Every structure is written in structure tokens, then in C-alpha cells.
């Protein structure tokens, strides 16, 4: 039996090493790895990074990218950037929200409220596509979960702008990015040093902004990540202790049978 098992393992190893080698040779540029604070079973978001990330999103990304699934109130909820209630109200009031119809049947605009969803930069997908050279800037609410590689991928793309190698053909309005499929992207490099001024005095380098905005996007994609991690640890502890107790009871109960032998 042992012999068989060994053979089974060896055969599978051979098989998977062959196929993995083939995969490797096809693989694209390796993604940049960041030591994210939200990784691992006790991972949490870095509060100030989330707040800075929101600033980068709203000052840079939001001019093209919508975020339909997130409300201003979320910015003040536990596990997120945790802006104070007044800050959230002030942030929301900065935006003009279309509401209505009113009693006369007309649409009107009013300052945003915390319960409003993030205001989109374009009225619809078609308008967004037309304004961006035929490439729709994807909604960013769940973007991190919608891309293979997740946070590392988003960060890599933001950091992946380079001059194209000699002889690389680029059409008009297309940019070279080594982490994109086909190494082409229709978004120009959105980040440049000092494009935002952080109120907490952090140096707004490209890497810093990319890291902050990716953290923010990870939170918008998975707003309950911290609750999930906390609960998960408790559940695992409970299940481990419980299964240990059940194991001991089981040994006790079965000892009646085993002693009959």
C-alpha cells in the first residue's frame, strides 16, 4: 500500500511538473508583490492609507472611473477609511446629485448626502466610452476582485508604465504597460509625482499613491474584510477546541468496543 501511495505521488508530481513548466514558459511578466497590511488571516487595512487612497481615487481616478456600488456613508463605517461623521457629510456635500422628479415633475440637483452612491463622472456607459477613445473605464467598485492577481495586479499596472521597447508598435491613444495583456493600455499613466497633496504630509510618490489607491480599491471590493478575518479567527479557535473535545469523547465511547477485542 505504501509502495502504491509513493508511486501515486511520484506520478502526480511528474505530471504536474511537466504541465507547470509549460505554463511557466507562457507566463506573462511577473506581478510586483507588495506586503499588503490586509493580507494573512489577521490582516487589517491601514486606516491612513485608506484615507489617502480615497483622496487619490477622488482626485485622479474619479474623473473617468465610476464607483456605483459604494455610498459616501461607507467611508465612515468601521473597517473602512473611518472618516468621522462630519467628514463624511462634508465629503458627500461636495458632490452635486441629480434627484427628482419634484412636485412639478422636474429633475433637480442637490448637494450629496451620506446615503447617496458615489456620483459617476459620466451619465452612462456609452458617454464614458465615447469620452475615452472607445475604451470604457471600468467601474472600480469590485475591480480588485474582477482581476486575476487582485491587489498586486492593480498596483503593478499603476507602476507598469514604461517607454515601449524599440520596434513596439503603438497606435494613437494607446500606451505601453508591461503588466497588461498584450502590453497595451488605453489609459495614460494616471499617477505622477505630486499630482495629489496629502494632507497628512506623506510624500506623494508614484509608488505611495499606487499603494494607497490599491488599498482603497481593495476595501471597496471587500468592505467587510476586517470583520471577516476577525470572525474567521474566532470560528477556527472554536472549531478546533470543539473538535478536540469531540475527539476525546469519541475515544472514550469507542474504548468500550475496542476493549472487547
Amino acid at each position, binding site marked *: *500500500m505504501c509502495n*502504491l501511495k509513493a*508511486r*501515486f505521488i511520484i*506520478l*502526480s508530481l511528474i*505530471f*504536474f511538473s*511537466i*504541465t507547470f513548466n*509549460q*505554463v511557466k514558459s507562457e507566463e506573462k511578466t511577473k506581478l510586483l508583490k507588495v506586503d499588503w497590511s490586509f493580507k494573512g*488571516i489577521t490582516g487589517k487595512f491601514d486606516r491612513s492609507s485608506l484615507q489617502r487612497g480615497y483622496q487619490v481615487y477622488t482626485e485622479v481616478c474619479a474623473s473617468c472611473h465610476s464607483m*456605483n*456600488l459604494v455610498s459616501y456613508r*461607507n467611508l465612515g463605517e468601521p473597517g473602512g477609511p473611518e472618516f468621522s461623521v462630519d467628514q463624511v457629510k462634508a465629503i458627500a456635500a461636495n458632490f452635486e446629485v441629480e434627484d427628482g422628479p419634484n412636485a412639478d415633475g422636474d429633475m433637480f440637483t442637490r448637494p450629496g448626502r451620506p446615503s447617496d452612491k458615489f456620483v459617476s463622472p459620466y451619465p452612462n456607459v456609452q458617454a464614458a466610452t465615447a469620452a475615452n477613445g472607445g475604451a470604457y473605464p*471600468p467601474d472600480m*467598485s*469590485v475591480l480588485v*476582485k*474582477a*482581476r*486575476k492577481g*487582485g491587489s498586486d495586479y492593480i498596483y503593478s499596472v499603476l507602476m507598469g508604465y514604461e517607454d515601449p521597447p524599440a520596434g513596439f508598435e503603438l497606435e494613437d491613444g494607446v500606451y505601453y504597460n508591461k503588466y497588461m*495583456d498584450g502590453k497595451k493600455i488605453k489609459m495614460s499613466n494616471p499617477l505622477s509625482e505630486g499630482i495629489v497633496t496629502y494632507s497628512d504630509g506623506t510624500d506623494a510618490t508614484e509608488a505611495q499613491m499606487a499603494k494607497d489607491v490599491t488599498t482603497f480599491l481593495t476595501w471597496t*471590493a471587500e*468592505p*467587510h474584510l476586517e470583520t*471577516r*478575518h476577525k*470572525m*474567521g*479567527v474566532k*470560528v*477556527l479557535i472554536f*472549531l*478546533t477546541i*470543539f*473538535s478536540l473535545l*469531540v*475527539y476525546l*469523547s*469519541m475515544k472514550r*465511547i*469507542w474504548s468500550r*468496543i475496542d476493549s*472487547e*477485542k
Partner: protein
Amino acid sequence: MSENYVPSSKFGKWFNDRLPLLTLSKHLTDYPTPKNLNYWWTFGGILTFCLISQIITGIVLGMHYVAHADMAFNSIEHIMRDVNYGWLIRYIHSNGASMFFLAVYIHIFRSLFYGSYRSPREIIWILGMLIYLLMMATAFMGYVLPWGQMSFWGATVITNLFSAIPLVGESIVTWLWGGYSVDNPTLTRFFSLHYLFPFLILGLVVLHIWALHVPGNNNPIGIDIKKPSKDTVPFHPYITIKDLFALLIFMIIFSGFIFFAPNILGHSDNYIEANPLVTPKHIVPEWYLLPFYAILRAVPDKLGGVVLMLGSIFILMALPWLDSSKVRSTVFRPLYKKFFWLLVIDVLALGYVGAMPAEGLYLLIARVGTIYYFAHFLIVLPVLSRIEKTEPVPLSISEPVLGGMLKPEMARSDRKDV
């Protein structure tokens, strides 16, 4: 014995004479179970847990989900963000499907290894296969409901398989879709059926267990035993506590997925809302359907692919009649044991190449794997079961030596596989 059971209380007796629920519960408690069942036998209980947990979480999700092509995607995100513990319920449900399949595959391979499909348990086996078929249909339709890119395109690819049927194929596909492409009518009917099928499964599970309780459990050495006897233990507390322990270990793994890697088994494209105008680069089904997907794509002809894919499942139903070996358990079939593990590798390999593009080496592996899969059941098993020289089988679980064993060491209880 439970058949002559008389409840002690007067009301209990009155009630039980009219509806013998107490007799049933007595039967379930006393049910004589072979005492040498190993942990591979705990997956029946684990699967029952999976089914119940899927039904409960599914009913709650159904309270918040909107089955409409324009709203389904956002309603899932509403559950994930705004419903209290909605993220937990949804992650239990989506990962629960994977855990359900993991458990069912172990359950099926256990049955294959120990010959649990053999006479007199053919009906249990066929009912199990029907449950498995319904599970696949349910899981497939459930995967469509979030209305992401993989939902949409997976539904398109799978429903299009029916177009391979000669003459009426195209009409059947239109009928399934409720239109000329996968669209809102498809989504609403999938939701309706996804809600219905688990209850059909539940009904079949009752029959599956009922059929099991007629001959009783098979066991690792695959012999018929007297019940009740020294070879058996009452189901409660011996098996219940063992099943509970195994279930808890299973739940630890399950929780690992739910809380720390809830999306690792899914496809990232399914977080992009369905778009009929953009086809994803690689359309892949969920991991548990990959071996069948590999078989489908291994055949150059569409109809042939569909026939082989369905054949690969239906062939299993004929298994009790393909295997004519006098010995049930593979433990005593040294030659067949090797082929059994070859089959396991084969199915894993098919699953792996099913996730890869159908070209080059992958396609070759898929073809070889498909050929072996069918050869295993149609050639290896029938031939081996006739010519193989099996090892001597003990006569009972507790007294193998007295039973005239040729090789007493065969019955040693410290053997891992017995």
C-alpha cells in the same frame, strides 16, 4: 429490535401507533453499522450537512437576490455590502458548493474503491448517481445567477451543447433559453430551477438512505456481515460521534475558505457584470466540472464530445454490472488497486487540463485521459474482474482467524486500508 419497539409513554404509544415516527427514530439510533468503518465512510454525513447548509443559506440569499438581467449582479453586491452578514451567507453558499463537490467526489471514489456499488447495493449507487447529476445541474444554474461574465458565457457554452443534437438541437436550445440568446428569461428560469432542484435532491437523499438501510453499510473488507452481531455497533453513539468529529475537521477546512480565501475557487471574471458583446478569453466552468469539460473538448466533433461527456457519467450507472469480481473490496484485489489509483490520477489530470486551453500538450493529455477513462470501465474492470487472482477475504470482521484465513495477517486491524 426497532420493529418491535414500544414507546414507554402512553402518548408516545398512541402517537406511534398512528404514525411510527418513534419507531423510525429508534431504527436510526440502533441501526447496526459495521464497526470497522474508516473515515472515508464519514462523507455521507458530511454531504447531508452540505445539502442542509446550502438549502438554508440559499433560502436566505433568495430573500435578497433579484433574478433580473439588469439587477442580478448588483443585488449580489447588495447582499455582499448592505445585508447584515450577507457576505458570510453568500460566501458559505458559494464555497459550500465547492465543498459539497469535494465531499461527493471522495464519497464516490470511496464507493468505487470498496465496491459499495456492487450487489445488493445497485439501487443505492444509481440513486447516488442521480443525485450527483442533479447536483451538477443545480450548481451550474447557481453559477449563472450572479450574472457575471463567467455566468453568462458558461451558460451560453453549456446550453449550446444541446444544439449538437441532430434535427431538433437548435429548437431545443431556443426553448431552453426562452429566446434567441441567453438573456433575462434564461436567468429567471435558472433561478426557479435552482430553487427547486435542491429539494428534489433532498427527496433522492431520503431514498438513498432508505435503500442503504435495507442491506446496511458496506465495509472496508467488503464482506457481508450478520446484523446485529459482534461485527456491528449501534449507529448512535458510535457512528454519530465519529461522523461529528469528521464533520468538524471538514468544517475547519471549509471555514478556511470562507474566511480567508473566499474567492480562490471562483473565477475573477465573474465579478465583471455579464456583457453579451465581450467574450472572455478562456471560458472555464467551476473546478468540479472540469474533468467533464476536458472530455467534451477532447473530441474534435461537437456531437461526439457531448455524447462522450454524458457517457462518462452514465457509464457509472452501469458499473454494478461491469464489475463481476467475486470480491467486493479493492483491498483484496492487488491488480485492480493499481488501476484504481490510475483512474484517480486520470480524473485529476482531466480536471487539470480542463482548466487549460485546449491545445498542444493539454489536448493530448485530455485525449489520452478520455481514452483511459472509458477503457477503465469498459475494458479493464470487466476483464480484470474475471481474470484477477484475488487475495483471501476474511469471513468476519472480528474473528477473521477462526474463519479459516489462509493469511491471518490480512485481517490485522492495524492495516491502514482495512
